[in-house]
């Protein structure tokens, strides 16, 4: 190949392969197509719209809580959802829902971001605090139980806080910013730890449909890298704070074959899970009415321990009363 031909080819390769008009500005992480900025925004939003429509995620008139942590995923989710809601007339009543664990200095920055989002996107914001929901802040819990096992409390409380907050605000649905990388990672982790019940459930786009407030993930097929690129106006900055070795593995896979993330999700959706696989039976907590497989939900067991001055209750193998 002579130099002239090579040069021509290269310059032709720099045109956006979707609109064929503009100069390509980035290599799209999902497909490695060279596309322009405008086309990237368009396909990014269009894909999310298709996911929402194809999976019937919302009905007109629904009140939808967006779980907002102040991180990149939920920030982009809030922006894209409010934009699509206006563009395609979903007729949704959107609002931001954040959790304040009550850890001094930890949430301050991210809550500031959420508050900024409230103003920028014109979405109402509700911050539910552990203090408000459970009567304890994490700082108080740590003071009572020490630094050991405090993550158990925080994890259990946070899991419920969004649902409780959404119920408090009379939401019909709760959306979270879980992306394709998160879901692929969950598939692998469930495979590695032998959890067949969760392996069958983790790729569902909507969970808890039989419960009071279903949760859904509009970013199920959206790559983390694209979520990073989207708000930063095509900045190549990419966070390195990926969780654990499974995440690292997924990032390595993505480098070799970008399609691999979607392939993992497809595998997860197609796994032939036996119908006889036992799913944990969901009942209601006798104390607070939250979904629970036991008599009392985990948060109530932990709270009961805290309030009775027995914080170790509910941690490890201790049984509920």
């Amino acid at each position, binding site marked *: 190949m002579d130099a002239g031909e090579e040069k021509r080819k290269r310059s032709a390769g720099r045109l956006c392969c979707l609109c064929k008009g503009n100069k390509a500005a980035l290599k799209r992480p999902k497909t490695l197509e060279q596309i322009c900025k405008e086309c990237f925004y368009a396909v990014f939003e269009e894909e999310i719209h298709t996911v929402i429509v194809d999976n019937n995620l919302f009905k007109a008139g629904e009140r939808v809580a967006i779980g907002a942590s102040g991180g990149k995923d939920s920030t982009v989710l809030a922006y894209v959802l409010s934009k699509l809601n206006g563009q395609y007339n979903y007729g949704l009543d959107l609002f931001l829902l954040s959790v304040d664990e009550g850890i001094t200095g930890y949430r301050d920055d991210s809550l500031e971001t959420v508050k900024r989002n409230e103003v920028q996107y014109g979405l109402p914001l509700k911050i539910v605090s552990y203090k408000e929901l459970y009567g304890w802040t994490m700082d108080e819990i740590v003071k009572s139980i020490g630094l050991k096992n405090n993550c158990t409390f925080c994890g259990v409380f946070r899991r419920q806080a969004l649902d409780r907050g959404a119920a408090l605000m009379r939401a019909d649905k709760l959306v979270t910013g879980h992306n394709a990388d998160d879901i692929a990672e969950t*598939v*692998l982790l*469930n*495979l*590695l*730890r*032998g*959890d*067949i019940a969760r*392996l069958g459930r983790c790729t569902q786009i909507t969970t808890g449909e039989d419960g009071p407030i279903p949760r859904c993930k509009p970013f199920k097929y959206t790559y983390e890298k694209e979520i990073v690129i989207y708000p930063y106006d095509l900045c190549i900055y990419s966070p390195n704070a990926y969780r654990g*070795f499974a995440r690292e*593995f997924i990032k*390595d*896979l993505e480098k*070799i*074959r970008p*399609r*691999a993330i*979607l*392939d*993992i999700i*497809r*595998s*997860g*959706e*197609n*796994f*032939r*899970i*036996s119908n006889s*696989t036992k799913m944990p039976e969901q009942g209601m907590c006798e104390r607070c009415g939250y979904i629970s497989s036991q008599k009392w939900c985990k948060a109530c067991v932990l709270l009961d321990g805290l309030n009775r001055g027995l914080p170790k209750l509910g941690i490890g193998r201790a049984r509920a009363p």
Partner: protein
Amino acid sequence: MGSCGGGGAGGGCQSECFRDREGDEEDSLRTEDLKRCSGSCSGDQSPANDGRGLCNKCREIAAVYNNLCGACFRFSLYGKFKVAVTSNGMISPTDKVLVALSGGPASRIALEFAHEMQLKAQKSWDASKDQALPVFGVGAAFIDESIPLRPSEVVQKAIEEMRFRVSQLTPPPKVFHVASIGSLLSADTKDGTGLNALLETISDATGKEDLLSYLRMLSLQKIALDNGYSKLVLGSCTTTIACHILSATVKGQGYSLPADIQYVDARWEIPVVLPLRSCLAEELSMLCHLDGHEIHQVFDQPCSGINNLVSSFIARVQEENPSRARTILRTAEKLRPFHFNRLSENLSYEMLPSRVRRKLQTAANAEFTPSELLCPICGGPLTESDVTRLKSTVSKSSRRHEAFAAHCCQSCCSQILPKELPSLEHFYSLLPVAMRGRVKDAASPGNHWLRDQIEDCLLSSDED
């Protein structure tokens, strides 16, 4: 030192903690001490003892691996092999079994164990009065993937060593077959250019590797068919299967995955069995080392792409938790297998002991479905969406290579099939007849299953 809690010179524990001082004592005395101590000593007798502890099973000989002595370790692995064979009815007395050798430890052990089992059956046959049940036959095969890139002298040396070893495994005598993948290809000449040309049409490195492994299976099937074998034994062990589970997940083959990881896979003309499924690669390598078998990693070239990444990932998680490969296999075991993952239809129950017969009849947990559409390249069952796609495209694809591509699973389409039509046609022309024939066979009137699936399309094309 002192981890066992035996205190001071006069303490009850006389184990390794005081070995230095006891160095000159007689071995028998030390053994006695170890035996006495083993009950009360709380210190672990794990590999930390560097093999100086006694075997947990026979309590007589020093442990060499996993707290077992060489003989007990071998016996435990052979036990796993035997349980897999008998409880799944893998080998019946009338069978002729072909063991696929790769040069690696797992297939070598599979051959040794098959020979041992055959030898025992032969002894029982010699001793029995009526000599009613025949003794199954064993043969071995090696697939030569030699392509010009690989040093043929190394391969030749390995083949000679394997041939020698197989000839030693008597009585009964065994045949050793060697075939090259290239011989499958119609366009191939002796120097393997046909295979190279075929691989060059594939752009994806992982796709190349995978196609090579599918062709290997095709060659093994051909040897087995041509020489009258009725079962094909592979040396797939827990570790390799765990790698396959993860790589199949990553390649989007989650639906067809359970087909590949069962003890029995009867979708091929000659059913494939995996009797070493519950042994770890590490265990098999250790046994090879203990038995002094020579290992030839002839094709253990540094593989690239997804397969390599997955095996290094598995090695890493195994380091963190040695039972991880077993957990992965156990998880995937819970996925529903396919109807061809059992042998019951071909099995003559009369030949089996009643104990095994009972087990087999109760273990029929595989789902009964009349048929599955299989991908002509990888042999994986097609998903519903693949079948829908096939239905919509098969009537439109007038040319053979297009029809072939329409029958392939999504994973093969993306990692093996060339995207451009002219390259696809070239790729199709280079494929072995046996692989191309799978689509022709599928559309022939004899195959009701495909006709049922795509009936509407066939009708519409007839009407035209």
